[in-house]
């Protein structure tokens, strides 16, 4: 767990560390993040960045949903099995006041500005093809069986209030804390610890979503 102040500090150290690194497979997930504050209230800061994904045509019934708009906006008039529509995504790392850990929020749009349905989101290159395994989907959430909270569901961004999709922080936190135990800490340096915490968090997040778009 982190306090809000620790989260703020960790994010700022993180941005500093990666803002000047050259693009590479290793650092793509970690670059390009900006810090944002709420215009009038302190303690509501978060990370954001914009990035692009592609829709992935798996040829499955995922595309046979009732969203009639989809076929019309398929701009790549290419063979049916190759779909390279570019999807725009805004991504956020916010502080979860309930769970006291970072939490990943995102929105994703077609190039015409229409929001994606959950099926389209799950079929995009944001997620790996096994995201649907052992999970149930509704139009508003993806839930792994026998878990307390949905893995992916909708919620209002805690600072901007805009609706987003978000990954429930619980599982990420458990994994981060396990991994941190394995890493040798420089005990007396809190900044080092906070940076490491967030790096490990991004690594765990990267195993669920594709951050290196």
């Amino acid at each position, binding site marked *: 767990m982190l306090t*809000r102040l620790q989260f703020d500090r960790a994010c700022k150290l993180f941005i500093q560390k990666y803002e000047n690194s050259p693009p590479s497979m290793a650092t793509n997930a970690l670059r390009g993040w900006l810090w944002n504050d*709420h215009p*009038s*209230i302190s*303690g*509501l800061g978060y990370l954001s960045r914009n990035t692009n994904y592609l829709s992935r045509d798996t040829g499955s019934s995922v595309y046979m949903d009732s969203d009639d708009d989809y076929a019309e906006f398929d701009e790549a008039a290419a063979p049916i099995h190759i779909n390279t529509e570019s999807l725009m995504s805004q991504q956020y790392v916010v502080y979860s*006041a*309930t*769970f*006291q850990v970072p939490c990943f929020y995102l*929105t994703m749009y077609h190039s015409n500005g*229409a*929001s994606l*349905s959950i099926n389209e989101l799950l079929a995009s290159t944001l997620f790996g093809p096994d995201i649907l395994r052992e999970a149930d989907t*509704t*139009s*508003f*959430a993806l839930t792994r069986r026998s878990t*307390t*909270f*949905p893995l992916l*569901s*909708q*919620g*209002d961004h*805690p*600072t*901007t*209030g*805009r*609706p987003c999709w978000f990954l429930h922080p619980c599982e990420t936190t458990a994994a981060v804390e396990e991994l941190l135990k394995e890493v040798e800490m420089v005990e007396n340096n809190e900044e080092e610890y906070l940076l490491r915490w967030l790096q490990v968090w991004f690594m765990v997040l990267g195993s669920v979503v594709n951050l290196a778009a």
Partner: protein
Amino acid sequence: MSTYGTTRHHHSPAANYSNRDRVTDYHTTLFRRLTWDGTVPLEIRVDPKELPANSDRNLECYFVQAPRVSYLPLLMPEIRRFFMDLVFDETVAKDIKDDEWWFETAEGTLVKWHWPVGLIYDNHTISASLKPSTSRSSANVTPLRLILHLASPPNDKLLLSPSPDACKQAFMGQLKEADFIRWGSTKRMTGLRQQDQDGLWEGIKEHNFDDYWRVASKVTPTTAPTRAQSPAPPPSSASMVNRPPSADPGGPSERDGAYNVRSIPVRLYLPDGPVIQDLVPPMADDNTPRTLSHYLTDHIPLLFPAPPPAPPPSRTNLHPRPPPVPRPAYALVQGIVMPSETEMAWLGGCLAGADGWVNVCIGINSQHS
């Protein structure tokens, strides 16, 4: 003392108690009942620009006295029936799909599907407090005027899927978060049988206090009259009086009391601002119960300044009182202006919404707006 779950049963109260049942004192029950029974007036009309041809304009408005603990998706069936059956022309109504319907306040604020009705209402009250109004009367309860749009919901500003299922999932999520905030884990909620968990939502849908609280009392902390330090005898009741403490490990205990939680699930709503959520331990640093005054001074000191200390005693005034503090703002919980000495833990046990959360809405006092 009244107890839960037995108002409709005719057999002995003792037979109903499992280890996890609680005897809740009269005081707490009273406030929970008042909260549950609270309603707000809604006045719904279709955007005149979208009113289909040949609609009956004499019936343009649907009035409903909606429970504070309910949700708009649950009110949709009756709203839909009114407009489809009575207002819209039959032939036109056939082609209207209600999955694109959405609401806005008369002032143009989007109404959120996943907020309880009481919160929507109180949030509107505080937004209105920012606008100077010569005709606003604080004595009357005015209906919340909502505009119903029939198409093109702004998907970038409003969550998708206003279905009852989505609403239920959001509701259950809030209950689990509240559980986590109180105890650091969700095991009280997840420890409930699926049937019981579903029963909470059924209680909301059917608006049935007993059904809801039969389950909720297992996971919601009580505000027993005893306090933090000394273990005092539990509230008396016929079934408990002859039971020695060791025989009833699940009985009302300090362990699960509202003053022993790690933090109270509470959110702060500003008139035009974000929702603020933070840790709120039940006891303040000086080991007295944390009050609303402490909480508000901590988070919005400009609106709720800390009371200055009393001046030192003098010959003419042996017991001076601190000077009065201007009050630019007020705090509403369940639509009621709360006294500053209200204890946060008490709010958590007695005036929380059905989703487990205490929603504190801050309004601006009229002479300052």
